[in-house]
């Protein structure tokens, strides 16, 4: 499977399907990080590979996708957020979208919890809940030998965890790879933020004694894991930076759960 991740993949485009009169079951919401962040683009690709493998009926908006407005809203720019949201909702309505699947927890939270206030009517599924369902139903089979022997820890993204109470799906999916999770001291609802939420991703931190991502990376390193699993593009940037700062990027991998799954699909 890892070979497949290196070559171009075919991804259905909503406008093209719609022109043919087809309506896919899911809209795969890639998000700005999936589209533009060099590291996280691989995660979008890994997840699309899984969807293709499963034969899921889905499409992406491609050039018609636009920021959900989350960073604008959390930075206080409600006007810009609502303009983004209403524009996006019009596109969803145009394509009669009923289900959206997200990889980014910030997009997930905004689409699921905040868009309904502005007239959105659709179901939003996080990719981890989706993967959990596919594994449980036996549709997604995994080769447990692929990542065997690796020690793994999982960093809960705030926008899945505390924001939406999703703690079990990611753990279920990781464990279905035959891995046991070495939890960090602060985990699940106690997890420490990576430092990038609330639009912090896009600005320097205020002055203090330490960067939050370093504090969190140190905690992850204490578990002596070979893989730090993340489930959010911003967490990934922060933890990867933390590993670089600690000169550990060679020995320890920071992978998104979608990437771990993509390496093990049979």
């Amino acid at each position: 499977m890892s070979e497949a991740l290196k070559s171009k993949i075919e991804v259905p485009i909503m406008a093209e399907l719609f022109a043919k009169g087809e309506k896919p079951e899911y809209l795969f919401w890639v998000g700005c990080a999936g589209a533009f962040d060099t590291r996280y683009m691989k995660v979008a690709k890994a997840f699309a590979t899984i969807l293709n493998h499963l034969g899921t009926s889905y499409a992406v908006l491609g050039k018609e996708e636009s920021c959900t407005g989350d960073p604008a809203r959390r930075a206080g720019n409600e006007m810009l957020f609502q303009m983004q949201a209403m524009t996006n909702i019009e596109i969803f309505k145009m394509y009669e979208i009923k289900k959206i699947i997200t990889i980014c927890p910030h997009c997930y939270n905004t689409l699921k919890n905040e868009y309904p206030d502005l007239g959105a009517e659709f179901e939003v599924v996080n990719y981890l809940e989706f993967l959990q369902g596919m594994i449980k139903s036996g549709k997604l089979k995994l080769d447990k030998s692929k990542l065997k022997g690796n020690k793994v820890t999982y960093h809960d993204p705030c926008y899945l965890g505390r924001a939406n109470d999703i703690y079990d799906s990611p753990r279920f999916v990781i464990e279905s790879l035959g891995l046991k999770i070495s939890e960090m001291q602060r985990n699940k609802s106690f997890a420490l933020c990576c430092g990038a939420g609330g639009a912090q991703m896009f600005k320097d931190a205020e002055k203090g004694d330490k960067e939050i991502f370093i504090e969190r990376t140190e905690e992850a390193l204490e578990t002596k894991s070979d893989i730090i699993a993340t489930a959010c593009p911003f967490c990934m940037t922060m933890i990867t930076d933390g590993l670089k700062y600690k000169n550990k990027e060679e020995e320890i991998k920071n992978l998104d759960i979608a990437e771990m799954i993509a390496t093990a699909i049979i």
Partner: protein
Amino acid sequence: MSQLVFIVLLTITIGIFAYSAFKVYQLFKLTKPAYPVRDFGKRINRTIVNAFFQQRIFRNPVAGFMHAMVFWGFCLILVGSIEMVIDGIAGTERILASLGLVYNIIIGGGDLFAYIIAVFIVVFIIRRTILNVNRLHGKEMQKKNHIDAILALTMILLLMISLAGMNMFYIAGHSDYVGVYPISALIAPLFVNMQADTIKLIHDISWWSHIILIFIFANALPYSKHFHIFMSIPNVFFSRLTPLGKMTNMDSITKEVKLMMNPETAFAATPEGDEPPARFGILDAEDFTWKNYIDSLACTQCGRCTAVCPANITGKELSPRKMIMNIRQRMKMKGPHLVKQGADYNDGFSLIRDLIKEEEVWACTTCNACAKECPLNIDHPTFILDLRRYLVMEESAAPAQLNAIFANIENNGAPWQYSNEDRLNWTE
């Protein structure tokens, strides 16, 4: 005679309390809407779980256990206090004893808890003064805050000592006493040989001290952080039921955006009397929502929020506890003037900048650790984000890097400066 004294004291107590309550009510009338309060079933459920079962406080098991014991003890002892008020007015003694088994359980529980609470209160005082538990300190915790805390703890300790004294000497003075007193009954035999008059005197002094302390305590609370005792359960009941990640929608903005996107329909749909708010977000006391204010009254400055705040842990200026304390502080400063002189009152001072630095507002990662930790469902992030809304929408005072992402989102639909044409590059 003693009945008359009691009734006079009770009337004064209720009078002062009503005055304090009215002042608080006037301040609440100044507040802005937060969200509609619906779903009473869910609210009752949350109140039972979070308040009566103390669910969240157990996230910190040791201090949580002690708090829970104090809380449950208070609930039982409260029934005993009601009995004392009835006895005081009617000149009776232990009038509720006719309740039988129920009475024995309540009074027996109250007796047991009086001693447990007394011990834990001493532990609390030690934690604050000798052990210097980190979370009870911090730059916003000034001397007056510690004095407030110690005074309240001392008062509770005296309440428990007087209650225990009352029970012990009641038993010592009555061979045919009513009710069950698991601990006091063990100690009381030490005093049976004392003179009957002395026993009665000590009992009466304990009884009167206990009830007078309650009267003083009740009237001190509205001016102390221990207003917590009255406001915490309502705060849980009225807390936001939506997921922590959800931010409240600004409907006034929705109207404007609709107008921009589709001028004809929006014009037609604008109902009369629906005026835009005087100000977007929160700058000062007049902008607080009722939830901000009740949060600030319920807060007992325990610091669980600040102890888990990633910004605070890493040495940034932000402390969620300070933010909540600032709400109450500013309302106390400005609120009464707003009541008297109207909404235009200006004291040349403002919450943002004079009490809360912009640096604090921008340090928040909206991770919701504070909100998750707060045993009372105080909603710090919503408040902080409303401060940001003011800074951005009224003053365009966002940090430059955030202004850059606003421009990018506006121009190319992403926080980064990439073209929409490249949105499928990840498939390569």
